C-alpha cells in the first residue's frame, strides 16, 4: 500500500521517503497506519501460530514456558493495540474526511504526530524480543505479578512504557477526529446525515479519549511502583491488587467497543451498498452505537466475577452486561432488515460483512453466557473465553475490517482487487476461524484454563486442540492469499473509477485515489445518501476553480515523536541523561511545530 503513490518517473528514493515522513495528508497518513498495522497484524499472527503449534498436542515442548508467556502476552497486546486499533485508524484517516466532505482532518500535523508516536511505541514494545525480554505478564498484566518482586526483568517495563506511548497516540488521534467530525462537516452534512462509519468513528473516539486516561493512570501507578518504589499495588504496604483490575477493566471493557464499533460502522456501509437498499433504521443503528458506548462504562466488573465481589455486585454487573446485548441485537436485526427485499451482490466486501454478522452472533451469544456471573465462574479464564474473544475479534472486528479493506481498496489505490482471490481469502478465513475457535468452547468446558503453555493428555482435549491448530494455520494461509491479492491488484492495475460499487456516500463522488485536496469544491450535501438521492446534489466540478491551498509537510511531528521514544528509553534504562535528552527533543519539537510558519 505504501508504494501506491509510486509512478514510473517517481522522484528519487530519498525524497520519496522524506515526503512520507513529513506528510500531513490524511490519506497518506491513513496508508501509513494501514501498512504498519498490517505488518503488526502479521507479526501477531505469527505469534499465534507458534502458540497453536505448541498446543497442537499435550505435553509438547516446542517453546519454553517463559517464551510462551511472552508470545501470548505479545499476541494479545499486538492484536489489540498494534493491529485492530490502527487498522481502524487507517480508515478513520482515509475515509472520514472524504465522507464528511472535508479536505483534511482538523489538525493535520497532530495527525502525523499520532502516527509516528504509534509507530515508535509499537517498535519499542517489539524491540523487547531482541533482548529476550518481551512482556510476559499477559495483555491484562494483573498486579501484583507485574511488580518488580515477581517480574524483575525489563519485560514488564517494555510493556508499561509501550502502552503509555500508544495511549498518547490514541488520545491525540481521538481528539483530532472528534474535532474533525464535529467541525469540518461540509455544508448540509447534518449529524443525522453522517454516514454510519463516520458516526461509529465519532463514538469510538469519544470512548478513546475517555477510556485511555483510565489505563494511563493504572500504568503510571505501576510504573511508579516499579521504578520509584511506590506501593499502589503492594499488599504488604497496604495496597490492593484489585485496584489494578478495576482500573484496567474500566478501560478494558470500553476498549472492546473501540475494537468492534469501527468494524460495525464498516459493515453498515457495505451492507446497504451491496443490497442496493438504504440502511434499515439508520437512526436506531446510530443510537444503539451511542447506547453501547454509554452502557459500556457500567459493565467492567464482569471480567472479575471470580474475585468474590459479593452477590450484589455480581448481580448488578450481570444485569448491566445483559442489557448491552439489546442494542447489539438491534443492530443485527437492522442489518438483516436492510438485506431483506434487497438485491444482494455477493462480492468480497459483502461476503466479509455477512461473515461478520454470522460470527459476531456466535461471539455475542457466548458473551451473554459470560454475563451470567454464576455460570461465568466455570467459564472465566478458561478456553471458553478464548473462543468468545476470537469470535468477537477475529470473526467480528477482523472480518469487518477486511470487509472495509476490500470495499475501500479501489478508492484508496484506484485499482480493483481480484474477486476470485478475494473469495478464496474469505472462505479460507471463514473455515479456518471456525475450525480454530469453535472447538475452543469445548476445550474450555472440559476444563482447560487459558494461558497455559502445556496441558496434560488426561484432560482429553488433544484432538480438539489439534483441530484448532489446523484451523489457525488455515487462517494463516488465507492471509497469504490476501497478500497475493494485493500484489495482483498492483500488477494488473484494473482501474476502479470513481464508484466501482455504485455506493451512496460522498467519498464515491470523487476520483480514486482522490487528489490531495479531495474535493475540487466543498460539496453542499442535501441528503444522507448523496449518490443515491433523488434530489440531486450540486455536481462537484472535475477541475478546481482556483488554486487550492493545502498545508505543507512538517517533520516536527516526527521529531516530537522521537523525543517521546527517547524519553521512554531513558525510563527503561533508568538513565536520567537519556530521559532529559528525550524531553529536550520533545519540547523543542513541539515548540518548533507550534511556531512553524503556516505554509499556504
Amino acid at each position, binding site marked *: 500500500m505504501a508504494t501506491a503513490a509510486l509512478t514510473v518517473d517517481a522522484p528519487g528514493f530519498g525524497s520519496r521517503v522524506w515526503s512520507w515522513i513529513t506528510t500531513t495528508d490524511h490519506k497518506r497518513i491513513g496508508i501509513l497506519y494501514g501498512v504498519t498495522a498490517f505488518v503488526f497484524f502479521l507479526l501477531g499472527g505469527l505469534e499465534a501460530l507458534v502458540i497453536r503449534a505448541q498446543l497442537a498436542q499435550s505435553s509438547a515442548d516446542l517453546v519454553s514456558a517463559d517464551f510462551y*508467556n511472552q508470545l501470548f502476552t505479545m499476541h494479545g497486546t499486538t492484536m489489540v493495540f498494534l493491529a485492530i486499533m490502527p487498522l481502524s485508524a487507517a480508515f478513520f484517516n482515509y475515509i472520514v474526511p472524504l465522507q464528511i466532505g472535508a479536505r483534511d482532518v482538523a489538525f493535520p500535523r497532530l495527525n502525523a504526530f499520532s502516527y509516528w508516536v504509534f509507530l515508535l511505541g509499537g517498535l519499542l514494545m517489539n524491540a523487547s524480543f531482541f533482548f529476550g525480554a518481551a512482556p510476559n505478564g499477559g495483555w491484562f498484566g494483573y498486579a501484583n505479578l507485574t511488580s518488580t518482586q515477581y517480574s524483575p526483568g525489563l519485560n514488564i517495563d517494555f510493556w508499561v512504557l509501550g502502552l503509555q506511548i500508544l495511549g498518547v497516540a490514541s488520545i491525540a488521534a481521538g481528539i483530532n477526529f472528534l474535532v474533525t467530525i464535529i467541525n469540518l462537516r461540509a455544508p448540509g452534512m447534518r449529524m443525522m446525515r453522517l454516514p454510519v462509519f463516520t458516526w461509529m468513528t465519532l463514538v469510538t473516539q469519544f470512548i478513546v479519549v475517555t477510556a485511555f486516561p483510565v489505563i494511563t493512570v493504572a500504568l503510571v501507578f505501576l510504573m511508579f511502583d516499579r521504578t520509584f518504589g511506590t506501593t499502589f499495588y503492594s499488599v504488604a504496604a497496604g495496597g490492593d491488587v484489585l485496584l489494578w483490575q478495576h482500573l484496567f477493566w474500566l478501560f478494558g471493557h470500553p476498549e472492546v467497543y473501540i475494537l468492534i464499533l469501527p468494524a460495525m460502522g464498516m459493515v453498515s456501509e457495505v451492507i446497504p451498498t451491496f443490497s442496493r437498499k438504504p440502511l434499515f433504521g439508520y437512526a436506531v443503528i446510530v443510537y444503539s452505537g451511542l447506547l453501547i458506548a454509554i452502557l459500556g462504562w457500567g459493565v467492567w466488573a464482569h471480567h472479575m466475577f471470580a474475585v468474590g465481589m459479593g452477590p450484589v455486585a455480581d448481580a448488578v454487573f450481570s444485569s448491566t452486561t445483559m442489557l448491552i446485548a439489546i442494542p447489539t441485537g438491534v443492530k443485527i436485526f*437492522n442489518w438483516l432488515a436492510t438485506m431483506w427485499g434487497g438485491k444482494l451482490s*455477493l462480492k468480497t466486501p459483502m461476503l466479509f460483512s455477512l461473515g461478520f454478522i454470522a460470527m459476531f452472533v456466535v461471539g455475542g451469544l457466548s458473551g451473554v453466557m459470560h454475563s451470567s456471573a454464576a455460570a461465568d465462574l466455570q467459564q472465566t479464564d478458561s478456553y471458553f473465553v478464548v473462543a468468545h474473544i476470537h469470535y468477537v475479534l477475529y470473526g467480528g472486528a477482523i472480518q469487518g475490517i477486511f470487509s472495509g479493506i476490500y470495499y475501500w481498496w479501489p478508492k484508496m489505490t484506484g485499482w480493483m482487487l481480484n474477486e476470485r482471490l478475494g473469495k478464496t481469502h474469505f472462505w479460507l478465513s471463514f473455515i479456518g476461524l471456525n475450525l480454530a475457535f469453535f472447538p475452543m468452547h469445548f476445550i474450555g468446558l472440559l476444563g482447560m484454563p487459558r494461558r497455559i503453555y502445556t496441558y496434560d493428555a488426561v484432560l482429553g482435549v488433544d484432538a480438539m486442540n489439534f483441530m484448532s491448530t489446523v484451523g489457525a494455520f488455515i487462517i494463516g494461509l488465507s492471509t497469504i492469499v490476501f497478500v497475493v491479492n494485493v500484489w495482483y491488484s498492483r500488477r494488473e492495475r484494473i482501474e476502479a473509477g470513481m464508484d466501482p460499487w455504485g455506493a451512496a456516500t460522498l467519498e464515491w463522488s470523487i476520483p480514486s485515489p482522490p487528489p490531495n485536496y479531495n474535493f475540487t469544491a466543498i460539496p453542499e450535501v442535501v441528503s444522507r445518501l448523496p449518490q443515491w438521492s433523488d434530489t440531486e446534489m450540486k455536481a462537484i466540478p472535475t477541475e478546481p476553480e482556483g488554486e487550492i491551498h493545502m498545508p505543507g509537510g512538517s517533520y516536527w511531528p516526527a521529531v516530537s515523536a522521537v523525543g517521546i521514544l527517547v524519553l521512554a528509553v531513558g525510563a527503561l534504562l533508568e538513565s536520567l541523561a537519556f530521559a532529559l535528552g528525550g524531553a529536550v527533543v520533545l519540547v523543542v519539537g513541539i515548540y518548533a511545530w507550534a511556531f512553524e510558519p503556516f505554509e499556504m
Partner: protein
Amino acid sequence: MDITLRHERGRRRLGALLGVMLAGSVVAACGGDYPQSTLHPTADFGYQVDSLFRTIFWWAVAVFVIVETMLMYVIVKYRERPGSPDPRRIHGSTLLEVAWTLAPAVVLVFIAVPTIRTIMNVTGDAPEDALVIDVVGHQWWWEYRYQDFGVTTATDLHVPQGQPVQLRMTSADVIHSFWVPKIGGKRDVMPGRTTFIAFTPDSVGAYYGQCAEFCGESHAHMRLRLMVDPPDDFDTWVRGQQAAPSEAVTLDADAQRGREAFAAVRTPGNHSCLACHAVEGLAFGALGPNLTHLASRSSIAGGILPMDADALTRWLRDPLTIKPGSLMPDIDLTEDEISTLVAYLLTLR
C-alpha cells in the same frame, strides 16, 4: 450460473464441515472420562452452575438458530439474479424496530432471573457444621491447612463425601484461582484478601483441578487433585496425617542416611532442605510444601509428577527443568545422596 452452482456446492460442503465439527465436539464432550470437565459436576455448587449454564445454553442455541436461519434465508432469497428488480428503498419501520428491541429484552429476563438466583446460592457461605479448610496458593503449588485437625498438606485436597466443606483461601504471593471444575466454578485466590468456596461433594473419586489465573512462569504446572473419600476413609486419612511419621517406623540404613542428608546444612544456606520444608520433628521450613506425609500423596510438584521413587529422583536431580522458575532450586546432590533422600522421603507416609 456455473459460478453460482459452484458456490452453492461450496456452501453446502462448508455446512457439512461445520456440522461435523459441531457433532464431533459434542460427542467428544459427552462421552469419555474427562476428569476436569465442567459438564459433569459432582457437588451441589457444580449442579447449580451447570443447570444455569444449560438454561442459558439452550436460549443461546435458539437465538443462534433463528438469527443464522434468517441470515441464510436472506442470502439465498434476495441474492442478485439476472433481471431481479431494483429494490424498494425502505428506510425503516418503527414497529419492527420496537419489536426486535423488546424480543431480546424478554429473552434476557429468562436468563437474568435464574442467574441472580444462582448468584445468591453460590456465594461461598457454608452451614455451621461445614469442614473449614484453609487454602493457600503458592507459585506454583497449593497448600491446605486443616486447622481443626492440625494437619498441613499440599496438592491433594482430601474431603469427606456428603459433608459440607468451605475453602477459606488466600495467596502467599501473586493472584491464583482455585478451580476444580467438577465441584463447581473457580474463585480467585489473592494476597491480602480472603475468598471462599463452599460445596458438598456427593460422589467418591479423584477429581482434577488447576490454577486458572495466570500466575507466572509455571502457571501451567499448578495443578491439584480433589480426593473425595468415604467418611470412614477420610477419618483414617486424618489420623494418618496427625501421627508423627518417620519416628514411627524404624528407618533402614539408606533411609537413615537420607534423613541425615535432609537435615544437613548446605551452602548456600538456602539449599538446605530444612530451610524450606517442614517434616514434623525434624524441620520447620515454610517456603515449600510440608513433607511430613509426602509419601501419602498421589502426586508431587503441584500435581505434575506421580508420587513414586522415579519421579522423586527426577525432581531432586533437576526441579527447574521439570518446573521452570520453581522456587525449589537445583541443589548439588550426588546420585548417592539423591537415592538415600528418596529412600527417606518414601518413608514419610
